[in-house]
């Protein structure tokens, strides 16, 4: 890289190198054809310039083999690029199983980033090097976009749904991130830095300074504060143990996967999907919980075990029998990481 006049951002993630290679390939194709067209035009334009008013053109109507050739060649190049780009994209879209999950909430005009272990950051994200990080993102107002050029990843952050990206940083340092979907007045300053640290530094950072409680335990508190416990802990409402990732049978006979979107919807709009065997008695929590609190509740529910992951390939059915799932809490994993807080599993009175 030329000092002071870079042609690409730092390559700081496992994804970056692959994207850059494809980019160089395309640049080469581009340069080749641009040069081809420019040189041909210059050559023809000079060779066949009108030397005098009398110069006559020789009429050439067309040439079928030539047309076929210059249809096939671009077609071939396009096909190669498409396959290359798509396969790379698919690979880059799928987070590794063991990713650490960090929750991101965008709002006009700041980023709130929440670590599962507790610390919440604003416009700054500390991550350890060489560990896959998955960002699960949502917005409180308009569409934003979380973009880290050095990692070559971005994704829109859309209100009302969860989107995600992942990356694995390869070298320590500070890397700019931006909001890359126009979001109103202060769009241009809605950014910050990803700070990639060595694992030791990261542990030190985690343990030092303002250390909030873990998301799951905050969620557990909410579970009691918001009185979720009075129904979901007593059997009046469906229990949460091993809920996440399982298949839920609904009263209208269909089943859904209990993913983030489903749980979020059920908190905000309980009557949208009613679990088979239960009454639609839950009030809406819209306006009473923030997006962050929803994420905390989500983390709590995930910490109670996930139905999909507990038996790979053979998902547990839901609702499970009440007495079976009581031991589910405690040391379950959140997104592949040991949850530091022990979450008490509420039992019915």
């Amino acid at each position, binding site marked *: 890289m030329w000092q002071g006049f870079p042609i690409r951002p730092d390559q700081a993630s496992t994804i970056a190198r692959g994207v850059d290679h494809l980019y160089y390939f395309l640049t080469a194709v581009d340069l080749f054809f641009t040069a081809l067209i420019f040189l041909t035009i210059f050559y023809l334009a000079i060779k066949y310039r009108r030397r005098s008013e009398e110069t006559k053109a020789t009429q050439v109507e067309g040439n079928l083999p030539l047309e076929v050739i210059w249809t096939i060649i671009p077609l071939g190049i396009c096909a190669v690029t498409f396959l290359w780009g798509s396969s790379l994209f698919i690979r880059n879209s799928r987070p590794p199983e063991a990713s650490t999950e960090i929750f991101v909430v965008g709002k006009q005009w700041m980023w709130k980033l929440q670590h599962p272990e507790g610390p919440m950051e604003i416009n700054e994200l500390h991550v350890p090097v060489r560990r896959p990080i998955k960002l699960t993102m949502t917005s409180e107002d308009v569409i934003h976009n979380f973009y880290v050029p050095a990692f070559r990843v971005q994704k829109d952050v859309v209100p009302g749904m969860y989107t995600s990206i992942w990356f694995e940083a390869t070298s320590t340092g500070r890397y700019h991130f931006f909001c890359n979907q126009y979001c109103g007045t202060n769009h241009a300053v809605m950014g910050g830095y990803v700070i990639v640290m060595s694992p030791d530094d990261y542990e030190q950072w985690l343990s030092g300074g303002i250390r909030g409680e873990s998301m799951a335990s905050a969620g557990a508190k909410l579970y009691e504060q918001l009185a979720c416990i009075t129904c979901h802990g007593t059997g009046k409402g469906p229990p949460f143990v091993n809920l996440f990732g399982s298949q839920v049978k609904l009263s209208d006979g269909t089943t859904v996967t209990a993913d983030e979107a489903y749980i979020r919807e059920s908190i905000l*709009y309980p009557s*949208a999907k009613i679990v088979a065997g239960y009454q639609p008695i839950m009030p809406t929590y819209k306006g009473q919980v923030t997006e962050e609190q929803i994420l905390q509740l989500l983390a709590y529910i995930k910490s109670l075990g996930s139905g999909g992951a507990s038996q790979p390939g053979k998902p547990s059915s839901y609702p499970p029998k009440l007495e079976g799932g009581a031991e589910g809490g405690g040391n379950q994993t959140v997104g592949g990481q040991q949850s530091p807080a022990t979450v008490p599993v509420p039992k019915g009175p």
Partner: protein
Amino acid sequence: MWVFLATEVMFFGGLFTAYILYRNFYLSAFETGSRLLNVKIGAANTAVLLCSSLTMALGVRAAQLGKKKLLITFLVLTLLLGLTFIGVKLGLEWRHDYLEGFAPGVHWTFHGTDSRHLELFFCFYFFLTGIHALHMVIGAGILTVLIIMAGRGRFSPQRYNPVEVSGLYWHFVDIVWIFLYPLLYLIGGRY
């Protein structure tokens, strides 16, 4: 004119796309919403509109044959039927839905199961029928002009293109309703 109708197809097409999408997302709410509409009035109005299409077609035929009086009669009939449709739609149905509190954003009092998706259904209900009614009103205006022109003897078997073109427009609006009626009123089932 056919080219213009192609434009209109895409105009309603955008709305229908959105409708199809949300209906699949929120099936039960849309079915509930559909059951809240008055199917009798809907069916009656469909019949009224079909009648007006018939009189319009007969009107075009009268113009082709150069029967001036018959043409005016049929045009007036078409206009009256069209106005009946608009009257029933806006005066009766919309008023009723509004009073019941089914007007999203303006007067919404429904607080049952899945209220917000129902709101979405009623958004579509008002947008779709509203834009359709707007087309009807424009159609009524065109008919009025045609009646005046016919009264002045502007049309003949050689020159009746405006009548025919307006006829196409009127039938197109009819077709839109032919799709709206089942999509809005019947899709939830009445059993």
